[in-house]
């Protein structure tokens, strides 16, 4: 297997289309996916707009590496990662990770693994524009703990 694709884009994405790509092999039994959405509230602040900045080049490279690592750790058939950048409003989709495998345990584990990486190591930054002004989102300790479950990851 090596059907790994990452896309960093401003436009929205179509979950059904991504899932069709993931399920194109007839040996695929399981697709686990995660979709992240902009919440209207974050720590009790009303979010009007979320701005996502990234490090072009490093983002794609680092996600390609983590997808390759996931493919070594688990029996997978395909991974799709889409991460939006730019200005997003509450309810909009931010991120998609979908993993296809013969069996569900591998699909779930790899999907969580890639998401934990995106939250803690991939070079994206969120700025919230709220009723109380704009500010950069702080890293969450719980995300760091999630990521540490997996042991050493590539730098």
């Amino acid at each position: 297997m090596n059907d790994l694709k990452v896309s960093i884009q401003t436009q929205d994405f179509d979950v059904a289309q991504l899932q069709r790509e993931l399920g194109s092999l007839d040996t695929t039994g399981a697709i686990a996916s995660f979709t992240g959405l902009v919440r209207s509230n974050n720590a009790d602040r009303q979010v009007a707009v979320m701005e996502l900045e990234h490090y072009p080049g490093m983002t794609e490279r680092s996600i390609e590496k983590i997808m390759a690592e996931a493919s070594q750790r688990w029996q997978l058939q395909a991974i799709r990662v889409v991460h939006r950048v730019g200005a997003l409003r509450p309810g909009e989709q931010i991120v998609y990770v979908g993993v296809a495998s013969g069996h569900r345990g591998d699909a779930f584990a790899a999907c969580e693994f890639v998401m934990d990486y995106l939250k803690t190591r991939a070079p994206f930054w969120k700025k919230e524009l709220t009723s109380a002004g704009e500010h950069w989102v702080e890293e969450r300790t719980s995300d760091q703990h999630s990521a540490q479950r997996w042991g050493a990851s590539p730098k």
Partner: protein
Amino acid sequence: MLEILFFARLREQLGVGRLQVPYSDAVATLAGLQDHLIAEHGELWAQALQAENVLRAVNQDMAALDSALAAGDEVAFFPPVTGG
């Protein structure tokens, strides 16, 4: 030449997203480059670049302060990431 990039809060604090530094022995490590930038720009940069949670990358791989630099390298400084 070294290509230096700053992102997110760090870019806003320093008021610059990208700059170039001529390559020399003084900037042959990431620590050396950081000292050079602070010497050039002063206290605000010292606080920003030396903050405990600042991350650094060389040629798009995360890097420690003792990493060696070569002419043509791309070096980035940024705050903790918050994507996903």
